[in-house]
């Protein structure tokens, strides 16, 4: 009797306790199963189409720590807004619609920006350092998610503010689209005003430019070196076509091709060490390769026709060029080391001015349709046909942006020559700011300077 009681009471693992433990474990298992709620209630069918719209972005003026810098801050904001708008992928919101006029740099009132349907917001700040240099900082906000996406700061001299604004625009562009921005790159082009010609180098928005060469004789075919430090071009100052090489920063220049006959159409090889040229020294315009320093050119191919406008593919292995060996001007390609050429363009009887995209996938060129010269784009990988992406009459000289997303070309409108940029599908076209003079022969510079 007492022994029984002893046995029952002593053991830690009594029957009752065991039963209780087992039930608890079981209930616990069931409870946690319910709480986790494994998968969603319903799966909708895949969403495969959307509504591509520019991203609505609010760009309030940068806040200047010192009133003297207020104007620079405003100018920077305008440059950034202009860049983003011209890309066609952003829609800056009219500042008149802002609810919070001067947002706090680190803590803007996001509900105010959500109310005006801004998907992204940039807050910026401009301060002066002790050494006189200016510090520009920005934050990029995802308004609907309520988080900061990016933030950077830059220190530079006062007169470099425009470049910093472009760099900030690039950062915003990249963070929201995943693409590398081209706002901080440069474009070279020729302006003609009366009988004065000038080779200009400006920012990609057409502003902030310098004149690389002023002349009373025509300048044509500017070509950037892969590093962006030099420009090759053709000048008629010696009363014949000669090729010159100029350092962009210092302006120092030298003639590198002055052979008998005409010297034209320079194009750098991707390694930057040599140039392809068109020389007519042997009687007829043919393609040659020449070291950058100058010297003896090496003939690349022999044909009985005019071969000109050479352009390298980014891997440096293939050379595209224009030849009329088939009767009319068409675009051909051949191995850069030399070899047989094959024809590339088959639409129409007149195709010139080839340009290759930086990823090597696209060929842009000018075709003649009836009496109109139009810009065409051809997918080189698909081996398919080309499609016209402009419907204007007088397009020439296409050149790809270094991110491969845009093409700059010369066009004609209302009697004026101007520069246009277009996306590869032709959907978004913008006009580069004009100076009033005729602009032609554009060449888009590479990334970096």
């Amino acid at each position, binding site marked *: 009797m007492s*022994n*029984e009681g002893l*046995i*029952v009471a002593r*053991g830690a*693992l009594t*029957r009752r306790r*065991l*039963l209780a*433990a*087992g039930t608890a*474990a*079981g209930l616990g*298992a*069931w409870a*946690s*199963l319910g709480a*986790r*709620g*494994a*998968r*969603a*209630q*319903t*799966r*909708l*069918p*895949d*969403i*495969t*189409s*959307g*509504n*591509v*719209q520019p*991203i609505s972005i609010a760009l309030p003026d940068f806040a200047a720590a010192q009133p003297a810098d207020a104007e620079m801050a405003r100018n920077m904001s305008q440059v950034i807004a202009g860049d983003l708008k011209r890309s066609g*992928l952003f829609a800056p919101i009219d500042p008149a619609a802002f609810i919070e006029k001067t947002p706090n740099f680190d803590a803007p009132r996001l509900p105010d920006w959500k109310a005006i*349907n801004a*998907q992204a917001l940039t807050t910026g700040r401009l301060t002066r350092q002790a050494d006189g240099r200016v510090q520009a900082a920005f934050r990029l906000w*995802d308004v*609907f*998610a*309520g988080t900061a*996406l990016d933030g950077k700061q830059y220190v530079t001299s006062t007169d470099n503010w425009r470049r910093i604004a472009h760099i900030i625009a690039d950062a915003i562009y990249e963070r*929201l*689209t*995943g*693409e590398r921005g081209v706002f901080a790159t440069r474009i070279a082009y020729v302006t003609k005003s009366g009988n004065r010609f000038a080779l200009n180098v400006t920012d990609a928005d057409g502003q902030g430019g310098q004149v690389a060469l002023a002349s009373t004789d025509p300048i044509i075919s500017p070509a950037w070196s892969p590093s962006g430090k030099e420009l090759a071009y053709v000048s008629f100052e010696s009363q014949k076509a000669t090729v010159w090489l100029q350092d962009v920063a210092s302006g120092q220049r030298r003639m590198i091709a002055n052979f008998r006959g005409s010297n034209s159409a320079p194009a750098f090889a991707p390694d930057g060490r040599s140039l392809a040229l068109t020389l007519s020294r042997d009687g007829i315009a043919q393609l040659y390769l020449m070291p950058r320093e100058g010297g003896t050119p090496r003939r690349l191919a022999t044909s009985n026709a005019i071969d000109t406008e050479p352009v390298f593919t980014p891997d440096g292995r293939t050379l595209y060029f224009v030849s009329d060996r088939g009767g009319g001007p068409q675009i051909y390609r051949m191995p850069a080391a030399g070899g047989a050429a094959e024809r590339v363009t088959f639409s129409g009887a007149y195709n010139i001015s080839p340009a290759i995209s930086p990823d090597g996938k696209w060929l842009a060129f000018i075709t003649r349709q009836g*009496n109109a010269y139009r810009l065409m784009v051809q997918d080189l990988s698909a081996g398919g046909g080309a499609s016209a992406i402009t419907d204007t009459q007088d397009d020439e000289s296409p050149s790809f942006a270094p991110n491969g*997303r845009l093409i700059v070309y010369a066009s004609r409108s209302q*009697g004026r020559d101007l520069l246009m940029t277009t*996306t590869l599908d032709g959907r978004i076209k913008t006009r580069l700011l004009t100076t009033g003079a005729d602009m032609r022969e554009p060449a888009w510079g590479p990334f970096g300077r």
Partner: protein
Amino acid sequence: MARLANREADDKRLKVGLTVSSVFHASLLAWGLVSFTAKPFAAMPVDSLPVDIISSSEFSQITAGIKTAPKAEAPKPLVEKVADASSTPDMLAKVSAKPEIAAASEKPPAPPEPKPAEQKPEAKKEPEPKVDPIAEALAKEEARKKQEKKLEEQKKREEQKKRREEAKKREELNKQIENKLALLDKHEAQRHEATGATLNPTPSLGSPRGNASALSMSWVDGLRAQIQACWSPPVGLADAKDLTVDMRILINRDGSVTTEPTVQNRSAHPLFQIAAETAKRAVMRCQPYKLPAAQYDMWKDVEVNFDPREMFRG
């Protein structure tokens, strides 16, 4: 004493048995917990269409319609371009416009020819005589372009008319079903109506299906369409595969989204973060969503895959 010992032994055996049994059952439950949730059973969403079984006499009564029913506004289709109210299509004018067009098409070849010819001899003269033939040619070009534009607009209006008629037919059918429903469901209809004054948010170029008023009343399609209208993936995603984003969305009763939707898949692709952010933004922007209150339990917790591959083709 022997009986006590027996009982001891029995108790011990019982204890052991109980121990083993409890441990085994607990472990079985634990295993069940782990294994059964690893492979969830995904229910296929089924389009639910309410059905009512009626006699033939009832059917004829219903199709006769209710004369005293309030006139339901016909849902206008989404259009590509909102036509100006002032310009009404004049069918008679179209016929007489034909001879004009034939004449205009003969003109274009003429101006470009005299243009280059005129430019050469006049290049040496003063600039003034040069302007006139070019201005004329430009004016002719403009006139021809205007004609072409008019033709296009008329074509568009005809297409719109066709669409309106088709939509009307569908609306008749809709009315009949609605009347049937009126016998069953006293709740207010929660359909998202389309009006002709709203521009079609889905560009028809690239979309295999137009956004015409569909017969299906499934809230699944409604929610999907609402999210779709706000999804604007950046062009950079066009070339990329492996950029599908699987999103889970929790929705409140009033149609607003509870918290930021969660991304359920992973990808090593460098643009995946951008793709995920764009999808999240699409979901957050277009709230509150219009959904039938009666089926809240079905749509309070949904998941959907965003797949951009079809979008940028062509």
